[in-house]
């Protein structure tokens, strides 16, 4: 049984994620990335509807929205959270081992994905999931 959630929630969360990752990138602050990594971990494990960002959406944003509620399967945004977590972990490894370029590249990818989701309604799962499955079969 698949869970459906308000599709506007993950997009709002992606906007907050974009801002937090922008701060991490500009200030080169590992702890800001660690904070976002923790949010990604909640989204990846418990679901994107369980993160603090989703709580802000439900509590403060959703009551103000007037349009019709569009629901979506929880799995695509959860997949995106997992990819985000992957980038965050790689970025944190770079940050804590003084590999600055690794930190910057991994954080940039996570930032770009969140920005694309937020600004262009980009579906990360659509774009990379099948490629990953095909790659893993080849490997």
């Amino acid at each position, binding site marked *: 049984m698949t869970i459906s959630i308000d599709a506007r929630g993950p997009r709002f969360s992606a906007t907050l994620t974009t801002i937090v990752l922008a701060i991490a990138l500009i200030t080169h602050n590992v702890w800001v990335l660690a904070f976002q990594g923790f949010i990604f971990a909640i989204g990846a494990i418990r679901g994107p509807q369980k993160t603090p960002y989703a709580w802000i959406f439900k509590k403060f944003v959703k009551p103000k929205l007037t349009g019709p509620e569009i629901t979506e399967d929880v799995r695509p945004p959860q997949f995106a959270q997992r990819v985000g977590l992957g980038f965050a972990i790689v970025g944190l490894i770079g940050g804590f081992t003084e590999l600055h370029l690794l930190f910057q590249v991994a954080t940039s990818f996570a930032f770009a994905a969140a920005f694309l989701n937020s600004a262009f309604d980009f579906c990360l799962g659509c774009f990379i999931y099948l490629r990953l499955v*095909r790659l893993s079969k080849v490997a």
Partner: protein
Amino acid sequence: MKSFLPISIALLAATGFGFWYRFNSGRIKGGKSHGHRLSERELNKPLGSRVTLLQFSSAFCTPCRATKALISATIENMDDVVHIDLDAESNLDLVNRLEVTSTPTTLILNRKGIEVGRAVGAPSKAQILSAIDAVK
């Protein structure tokens, strides 16, 4: 160690990619690399007498559900058009042969099961209709 360089590069690249993605999403392309032929036996379903819209979907794809509903509604009164929705992951051999890399991807097949075009991403109703009209 403040630097605006990484974020500037990431923002520029992502914006460029975003516009490319938006522009191409759902567009029906003929393409020379296509022309694959599919049989009813391979699909386990009868082909349409004029057009078959073969959609590939996946679990981690939000627009797949909307595309499926839109195509079904669009062809509702067309007797000669059939819509088949396949899960890409459980049809990997077909996915590899047809060079499908993302979802939703919708192949437009003629009466012989030959691919005459495909839409990568979620097509609009107008795009679906014009693709169907273009098949003789």
